């Protein structure tokens, strides 16, 4: 039908012989040291969500302090900085990156491209265990003398390693070591994801027939493989500065009345390294979300995605551009103003492909047969939230507007909308969508509806007012405001309100976890393909898919992933592996 539809063609024979998989001999190699991407995916997801809960609890503690300053003795200024730092870093790196790439990537890539597993399952397994080690090192930093680092998730030197900062001794070193481990572990997985997409697709699966989910995760992984090196190098150098007393990032400095031994380093260098990683990181989190949301919308609106090719190119172009915008985080760092001009321009250019994606989602929904299932609700919520966060991004991308807004709560509101709430909504949508595949049962609808409305409306009640606080000039990363003339009393009342909502939203997540456990036992049986999706992961012989994903024969792909609402088709959709009616006989072999 449409552009990349089911043109009748001859599908070539297999170019590579079917791989022999590692067959687990014991319970341990099957479920613990497993080489099956699906088990690794679940291990990754469980670990990411577990450490994410720590970050969630930390956000409550911060909110308690912001809403009711001077009421909690156990939260000192020091603690607050440690909470902020660990909350930010865990959310961005250890939760979102690990969950999207290690979790969804591992589960979906092989299934969606029609492979039996990742290309190197053993390396893939190591990836998880090193990630777990990184998480453990991170957790260990809570228990060392001085506690975890309180340098802010950006870890800027010199303050990150100066004695005045909480966790300046062991805390910061453990954080850096943990990051380095994370990067090594991620690289092992990431190489697998990229190679699997490029070299291990099934017959008929061209790049331009891959579901957008795979495109999003694939491009994000490429970004990660090229962006994490900068963070790795920054981490190594800061560790040396801290442990051996080198001066890569440390200028001549007087700290607490004492002239330190450091001399001649460049703190700005760290900022460049950090943001050369940090900005692509935003897209490492956003691109998988873009991809997944495209598929959710298409499936649950029974309509092909509008402008598939444009969507693919938009992902690729956003990915490429994300490497030339990093210094928009450094407008107030004292960088040369001409740089600011350059980076503001590139930043605004990124808005173009991003806007294309939003238009295409909207056009996909235009006059479609929208089913308000839970995944669809989350997808719609994502679009709204993402547009919201994207628009405030345009404010912050312009130097003159950014300068007064920099380091205010407006920034906090912006990035929570665009890379906090928005991707989390997609993650929930994706879990509601793929849970039936992973467990064979549906999640409970009533609990899901409750969870959705509380989370979505709650997130807005938390973060919309924070924009306003930012405009008032409430600074970011402040333990408490005290009495300041430019901050009206009403801001304090607002802060109390936000805190109450944040606690309610947080507790509402328990309903979701209860649902996940309850439905595993009591949920409605899902059967094959409950959402009537075209993509390969739903066409497996067994549900949930077994070791090796597909049966004796790998599926053969004849069409793109978006044949929904096809007039004349039995079921209003045609799976990717269904041959066209008048296909040559040999193609069906």
């Amino acid at each position, binding site marked *: 039908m449409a552009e990349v539809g089911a043109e009748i063609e001859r599908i070539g024979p297999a*170019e590579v012989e079917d791989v022999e998989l590692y067959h687990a001999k014991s319970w341990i190699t099957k479920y613990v040291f497993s080489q099956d991407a699906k088990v690794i995916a679940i291990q990754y997801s469980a670990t990411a969500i577990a450490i994410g809960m720590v970050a969630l609890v930390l956000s409550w503690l911060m909110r308690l302090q912001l809403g009711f300053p001077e009421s909690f003795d156990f939260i000192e200024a020091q603690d607050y900085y440690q909470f902020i730092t660990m909350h930010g870093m865990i959310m961005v790196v250890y939760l979102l990156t690990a969950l999207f790439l290690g979790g969804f990537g591992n589960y979906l890539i092989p299934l969606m491209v029609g492979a039996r597993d990742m290309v190197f399952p053993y390396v893939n397994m190591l990836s998880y265990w090193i990630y777990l080690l990184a998480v453990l090192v991170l957790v260990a930093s809570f228990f060392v003398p001085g506690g975890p680092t309180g340098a802010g998730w950006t870890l800027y030197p010199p303050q990150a390693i100066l004695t005045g900062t909480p966790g300046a001794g062991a805390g910061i070193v453990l954080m850096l070591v943990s990051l380095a481990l994370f990067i090594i572990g991620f*690289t092992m997985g990431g190489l697998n994801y990229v190679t699997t997409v490029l070299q291990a697709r099934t017959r008929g699966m061209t790049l331009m027939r891959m579901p957008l989910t795979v495109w999003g995760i694939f491009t994000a992984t490429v970004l990660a493989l090229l962006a994490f090196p900068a963070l790795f190098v920054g981490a190594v150098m800061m560790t040396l500065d801290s442990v051996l007393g080198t001066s890569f990032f440390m200028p001549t400095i007087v700290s607490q009345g004492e002239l330190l031994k450091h001399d001649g380093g460049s703190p700005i260098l760290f900022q460049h390294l950090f943001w050369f990683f940090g900005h692509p990181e935003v897209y490492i989190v956003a691109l998988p979300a873009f991809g997944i949301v495209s598929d959710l919308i298409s499936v649950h609106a029974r309509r092909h995605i509008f402008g598939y090719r444009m969507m693919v190119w938009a992902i690729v172009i956003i990915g490429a551009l994300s490497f030339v915008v990093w210094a928009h985080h450094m407008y107030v760092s004292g960088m040369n103003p001409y740089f600011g001009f350059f980076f503001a321009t590139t930043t605004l250019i990124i808005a173009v492909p991003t806007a294309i994606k939003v238009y295409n989602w909207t056009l996909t929904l235009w006059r479609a047969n929208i089913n308000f299932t839970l995944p669809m609700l989350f997808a719609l919520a994502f679009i709204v939230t993402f547009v919201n966060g994207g628009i405030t991004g345009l404010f912050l991308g312009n130097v003159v507007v950014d300068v007064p807004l920099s380091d205010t709560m407006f920034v906090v509101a912006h990035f929570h909308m665009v890379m906090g709430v928005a991707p989390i909504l997609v993650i929930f949508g994706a879990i509601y969508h793929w849970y039936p595949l992973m467990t064979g049962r549906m999640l409970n609808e009533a609990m899901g509806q409750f969870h959705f409305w509380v989370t979505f409306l709650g997130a807005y009640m938390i973060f919309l007012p924070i924009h306003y606080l930012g405009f008032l000039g409430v600074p970011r990363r402040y333990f408490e405001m005290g009495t300041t003339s430019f901050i009206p009393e009403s801001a304090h009342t607002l802060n109390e309100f936000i805190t109450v909502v944040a606690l309610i939203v947080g507790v509402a997540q328990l309903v979701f976890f209860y649902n996940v456990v309850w439905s595993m036992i009591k949920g409605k049986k899902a059967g094959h393909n409950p959402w009537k999706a075209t993509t390969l992961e739903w066409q497996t012989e067994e549900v949930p898919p077994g070791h090796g994903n597909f049966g004796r024969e790998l599926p053969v792909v004849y069409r793109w992933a978006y044949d929904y609402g096809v007039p004349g088709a039995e079921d209003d959709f045609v799976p990717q592996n269904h041959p066209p009616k008048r296909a040559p006989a040999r193609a069906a072999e």
Partner: protein
Amino acid sequence: MAETTLTHTEGTAATRPDGLEGFVSDWSSDQRTFKNVPWGKAMMWIFLLSDTFIFSCFLLSYMTVRMSTTVPWPNASEVFALSFGGEPIPLILIAIMTFILITSSGTMVLAVNYGYRKDRFKTAIFLLITALFGATFVGMQAFEWTKLIVEEGVRPWGNPMGAAQFGSSFFMITGFHGFHVSVGVLFLILIARKVWRGDFDIEKKGFFTSRKGRYEIVETLGLYWHFVDLVWVFIFAFFYLW
């Protein structure tokens, strides 16, 4: 126009056009984007791309701190001079090290070549020779480090000759590179052992991976080795010659 044939495990052979058209047809084809490139080799290329970013960041950072420090930079050709019988010869040790590493790339090429001919004996020998060159390189590096630390008093946090960043960058960058060479040497020995035993002739399965062992691995390892060699050329140029 010449046409290259693809290998197939079944069915008829498809043909593939040359040049730009071939490039486009590869990228719009199914199954594999890089035709006839084994998984391991593709993965190594992607890894090396990522590793290039690491080394680039290291070198760029070194250049930045060299500019940010206000203390004069030590003169590399004096620091890295060795004297034989009185006359100091600038950069002599590093010249020999560079020569050894580049030679090792040559022996690696031979190993890969014999690997493709499935010449078990010669492949193993050349792998071992390469490993030996690699080990010599690391050994000389250890000698150079010792000399700098013990005799010249260079420390990561400072040195008598000038900017502290000289020592820190030197130890960090050559250390990271030396680590790459050492890992390479270990794998060379490991693979040489497998070749010697004939594991790849009978496609013996790997202990952990349960994948069939093939001579392709020699080429994949070769890619890594040449990369490490190439990186050295940049370190040599930017650190020792500048």
